[in-house]
């Protein structure tokens, strides 16, 4: 497995306002490679907006200031596709028009050339997710847990430098939640990714095993 960049994610005085109201007070935070930090807060406190700012997809109605860097690279103004920031939402968001394998191929960098080689990488990723032989399946025919695992493998195949988790365990029932949580954290740690989780669930934060930063309702 190719090692990621192994550089820390650094937020410097990131502050987000909505219509003149402070949503996120100035936040400075370092997440080391292999660490999983958690931002906890009630719904509506702007956790997801913070992740949207880091990944570059923040809605222009918000006013955000501060810098985001990965190692020495300042990515604050880069378009989302150049940031190498993988993000996992509570919906798996598999593309319904593509097979499971093509969803993964969508993420796999184009420099992996040749159909057989790409296919091999995809099969390998599916095997890691315990889904060998699922490449030609329609995502709609998979169970919730299977879909969640495919979605994570899709994110990881794009070789991100940072992993953002936007309440990805929310829609899963207790047992699945436990299993998938472990799956995610193991893979993130395995690749040495700086990982930032937002959640309102204390057990998620505990499972992440890193620092916990609390956000209040503004």
């Amino acid at each position, binding site marked *: 497995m190719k090692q990621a960049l192994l550089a820390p994610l650094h937020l410097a005085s990131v502050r987000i306002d909505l219509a003149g109201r402070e949503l996120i007070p100035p936040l400075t935070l370092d997440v080391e490679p292999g660490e999983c930090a958690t931002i906890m807060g009630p719904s509506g406190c702007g956790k997801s907006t913070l992740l*949207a700012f880091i*990944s*570059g*997809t923040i809605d*222009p*109605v918000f006013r955000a200031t501060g810098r985001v860097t990965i190692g020495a690279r300042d990515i604050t103004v880069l*378009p*989302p*596709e*150049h*940031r*190498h*920031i*993988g*993000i996992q*939402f509570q*919906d798996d*968001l598999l*593309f*319904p*028009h*593509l097979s499971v*394998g*093509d969803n993964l*191929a*969508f*993420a*796999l*960098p*184009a420099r*992996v050339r040749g159909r057989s080689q*790409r296919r091999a990488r995809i099969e390998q990723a599916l095997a890691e997710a315990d889904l060998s032989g699922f490449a030609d399946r329609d995502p709609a025919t998979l169970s919730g847990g299977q879909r969640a695992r495919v979605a994570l493998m*899709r*994110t990881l195949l*794009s070789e*991100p430098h940072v992993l953002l988790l936007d309440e990805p365990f929310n829609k899963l029932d207790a047992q699945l939640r436990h299993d998938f949580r472990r799956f995610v954290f193991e893979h993130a740690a395995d690749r040495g990714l700086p990982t930032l989780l937002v959640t309102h669930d204390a057990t998620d934060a505990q499972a992440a095993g890193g620092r916990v930063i609390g956000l209040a309702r503004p």
Partner: protein
Amino acid sequence: MSMVRRPGVLRLAPALTVGILLLPIAAGLVGTLLPAFGYLPAIGGRTFNLDGWRRLADYPGFGTSVAITIGTGVLTSALAVILAFGCCASLHDRPWMRRLGAWVAPILSTPHSAIALGLAFLLAPSGWIARALSPWLTGWILPPDVATVGDPAGVALVLGLLLKEVPYLILMIVGALNQVQARAHLAIARALGYGPAEAWLKAILPQIYPQIRLPIYAVIAFSLSVVDVALILGPSNPPPLAVLAVRWFSDADIQFYFPAAAAAILLLLLVIGIIAAWRGFERCAMLVGRRWIARGGRGGIATTAATMATLLFGVTFALSVLAIAGMAVWSVADQWRFPDALPQAWSLANWMRRFDGLAGPAWVTVVVGALATGVALCLVLACLENESRGHRRPGAAALWILYVPLLVPQVAFLFGAQVLLVRMNLDGTLAAVVWAHLIFVLPYLFLSLADPWRAFDPRYAQTAASLGASRMRVFFAVKLPILLRPVLIAGAVAFAVSVGQYLATVFAGNGRVATLTTEAVTLAAGADRRVIGAYAVAQTLFPLIAYVGAVLLPALLFAHRRGLRGHQ
């Protein structure tokens, strides 16, 4: 209050609506098909034969006419699709894109013929573009002697159609985007390293294509069979098939009915064939597209291509605005010699002089439009209300039925329908024209109202019912007010469709019912540009007033009801 519910008349609404749409089209098609094979007893055709087809094939420009029809139709459709996709792909992440519908609505509500008349003036050798560049750049003191409008290859015709078809497709795409998780899927694709245009083309377009397939087919059918725009901008000798058919249908020698019917049927076959070919092309594109997506390429030419398409759309958008502006300037020009870019003198005298001439057709236009819209609105509301009362939601077949009037070439059934009207002694009456407009008004009204109506939260109706309101009261006191804005906007769309009808008015009115559109197209041939300008402006104005009214009225009525905006 009775507890027993009578079997409502509402249940009849879907059948009635389908009947109004399909029966005249079916009867009209038969009425065109029979004369195409020599059978029309009223004018002596009592045996089946191929004379009509023979005369069509013997027409000196027959091959060229078919080639122009296919060439302009296919080119227009392909360009419209490319520009619309490219534009949405590169503009989807702009905040104002969400309001794009409001931007293109005025262009969409302007009749095709008004835009075509304006474009004719822009492109003409003595037109606005030539004037703007003369004499300082071109050295022309007199208009050059070249054919820029009505060129034999149909370039002006393609351009004229694009001005309207691209905004139409964009509006359909924006509507379809609401049905998928576009924002979230785009965010994922961007996080996986795709640029905005690529992300849209690879992750969103394949999801929404099934929903814009029928609108695309409608564009193909329209581009192949359009008459009014072709009369204004298209080549005339030989003309496209649809124009040829209309020309022969209206020939003083009624024996021309037979080749005219044959030409109309041939056009129908062409439309069917080209839509089938497009369907095949879709399948190939899907296979190639799968490979393209699975290769995982980032930063390809997609972004550049989409930007180019957007620029081209910008040009067509500017041309449509200039086209209408040019007509407005002509309508108040006193003296405007070539090569001046603006009139030497302005005056309202033209409007004063034309007032009497305009008033009659304007009145007919409004009355026909209001009646057709009113009837269509009642039918559509009845259908939708029937549907929401739980009598099963119509499936895909219903959608195809709605699209039939937009897919079948108008000449192919309007002629037969006219024969029918003559037999019932109804031809040339206002009722006949309203009825013919209804065929085209109904689908658009239904399509624009169905989505907001179905999105209505049923718990409002349940709450009202639990408070003791009858279903009638729920409908009039709860649903209609909450959905007033979409209802009025759908009405404005319907009215605009009616104002723009050319062929339906000419055939059902048997040439005796004059609307602004029929007059404007007739004048196009050679009248004073001041007169054409006044008609084109009037044509533009009425739908625009309806649209502005539809937006303003609910805003005024519910100015202090912020909660309503979520529904609208």
